[in-house]
């Protein structure tokens, strides 16, 4: 139903959602650093609160700077609408909040960012949301874990930290057989490398903190909806199909149609849970996104060269990067990530836990910290840091065993990155 000319990805990365400010002519997106917005009159105020007209009330709900970022992501993903959040984690919380009631269940891949496994397994449990985690490399596992009260499937298409590529199209088919949406965390791939909606995903979530913002300066998150899921095909989604008491009996799906999910997240989850993104962060992330295509090309080129270097290194046991022919995910990578397999991957160093610690403590150019997707190259030893909350079995399942070192390859001169790793490895 797209009625507008379709623009190329690079054009969207610079322009989607942005326009010169109508009042001042400012070409860069203004930072609307304000908590609230004046009403024209009481009727205008009432119409805004009733969701009958478009406009701004309060920055917890909408903000013009944040809205540009939301449209930018919706445009880049080829989605209908998007809602920004203060972090990737709060975006995930909101993505589920509209779908889940207490006592409901969802299925998640085991191969996820460790923080997401903890969020699902511990904090979501307190809301009465029950998650089953399954090995995502076998699609049948999702089918087997389906229950009558299952409301969604959640995967990372390119999983952190392991270089695992999931068969999105096949998992989407399992979700749709059961009448539930597939939620894909596209953080590591970014829409430049993969657009999950093209493979049947219904909802995409992002940590904008990573490659999208891209400069390691701002936290942010996003939920994007495809607009194609039929929320009325079953009675699983009362927050969308049943009258909502706080909006005098309004039914979101009936009233907002193909944008009902994002409007409901804004009007229910953002309103009540409150993790609004700050306008300043939105501005910094927007600026980052303008160069996303250029950065991702360099990130991927550098990552492949670094992965090849490590694979040939005598002190390295294995490298798990979907861009390497030796990877069991090489073929899936070619299908889902034709422009590159991203820039985050793991390798196993000979000597296990101790050697991992030696490397991260001896790099000089590469930064030892808990983040990914910065212009700078980053390194971490998950078993001693990000994945520390997990037990030994979970560590291995999450691709974060004791010998595992995770790299996020930056956009510096690749020879410098390799030289730094070489000297750190020489101390093992």
């Amino acid at each position, binding site marked *: 139903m797209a009625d507008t000319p379709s623009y190329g990805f690079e054009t969207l990365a610079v322009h989607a959602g942005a326009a*010169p400010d109508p009042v001042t002519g400012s070409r860069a997106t203004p930072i609307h650093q304000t908590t609230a917005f004046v009403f024209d009159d009481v009727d205008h105020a009432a119409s805004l609160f009733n969701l009958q*007209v*478009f406009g701004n009330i309060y920055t917890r709900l909408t903000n013009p700077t944040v809205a540009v970022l*939301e449209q930018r992501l919706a445009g880049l993903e080829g989605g209908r609408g998007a809602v920004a959040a203060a972090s990737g984690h709060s975006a995930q919380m909101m993505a589920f909040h509209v779908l889940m009631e207490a006592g409901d269940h969802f299925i998640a891949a085991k191969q996820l960012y460790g923080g997401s496994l903890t969020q699902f397994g511990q904090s979501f449990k307190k809301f009465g949301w029950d998650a089953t985690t399954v090995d995502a490399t076998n699609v049948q596992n999702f089918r087997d874990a389906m229950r009558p009260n299952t409301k969604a499937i959640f995967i990372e298409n390119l999983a952190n930290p392991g270089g695992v590529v999931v068969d999105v199209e096949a998992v989407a088919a399992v979700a749709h057989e059961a009448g539930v949406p597939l939620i894909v965390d596209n953080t590591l791939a970014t829409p430049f490398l993969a657009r999950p909606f093209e493979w049947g995903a219904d909802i995409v979530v992002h940590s904008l903190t990573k490659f999208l913002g891209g400069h390691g300066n701002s936290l942010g998150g996003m939920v994007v909806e495809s607009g194609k899921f039929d929320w009325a095909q079953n009675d699983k989604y009362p927050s969308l199909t049943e009258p909502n008491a706080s909006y005098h009996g309004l039914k979101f799906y009936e009233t907002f149609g193909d944008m009902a999910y994002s409007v409901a997240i804004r009007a229910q989850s953002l309103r009540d849970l409150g993790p609004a993104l700050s306008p300043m962060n939105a501005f910094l992330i927007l600026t980052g996104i303008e160069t996303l295509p250029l950065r991702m090309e360099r990130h991927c080129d550098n990552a492949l060269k670094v992965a090849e270097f490590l694979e040939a290194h005598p002190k390295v046991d294995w490298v798990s990067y979907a861009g390497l022919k030796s990877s069991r995910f090489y073929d899936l990578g070619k299908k889902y990530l034709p422009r590159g397999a991203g820039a985050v991957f793991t390798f196993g160093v000979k000597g296990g836990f101790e050697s991992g610690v030696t490397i991260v403590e001896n790099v000089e150019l590469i930064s030892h910290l808990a983040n990914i997707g910065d212009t700078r190259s980053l390194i971490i030893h998950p078993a001693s840091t990000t994945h520390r909350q997990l037990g030994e079995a979970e560590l291995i399942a999450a691709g974060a065993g004791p010998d595992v070192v995770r790299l996020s390859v930056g956009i510096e001169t690749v020879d410098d990155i390799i030289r730094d790793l070489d000297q750190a490895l020489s101390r093992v």
Partner: protein
Amino acid sequence: MDHERYDDTYIRAILRETKIIAMVGASSNWNRPSYFAMKYLQRKGFRVIPVNPREAGKEILGETVYASLAEVPDKIDMVDVFRNSEAAGPVADEAVAVGAKILWMQLGVRNDAAAARAEAAGLKVVMNRCPKIEFGRLSREIGWMGINTGVISSKRRSQL
């Protein structure tokens, strides 16, 4: 006329030339989608005249409700159909009879035979769209809700 997708220029021209909209199937219940659309379009300067035999004689948002298009005393530019696809057939014929210039069927409403008759009589036809959403999209206002307008412009003023 391809009714799968419309050029922005086509929709924009329709919204620009329309002053008076007769909304068939308008509801006085404030949480119905037709009420949302009417309220929004009024704020954007359109006059919206509700048509609904079950509500005839009442008022919705300050406008008298008429039982049929034929009873509307004003000259109608656009007939906006908030009825199902089948009911849109007779509404299309009435729209032709009252000399409307545009026949617009709401999101989810599509009747190709009715559209063909209206087009043969010289009307412009839009199906399976909402004028509120299209106005919001082309004016980029709907973007304030994070909705993808698809519109890119380096112009200071919005294009509506």
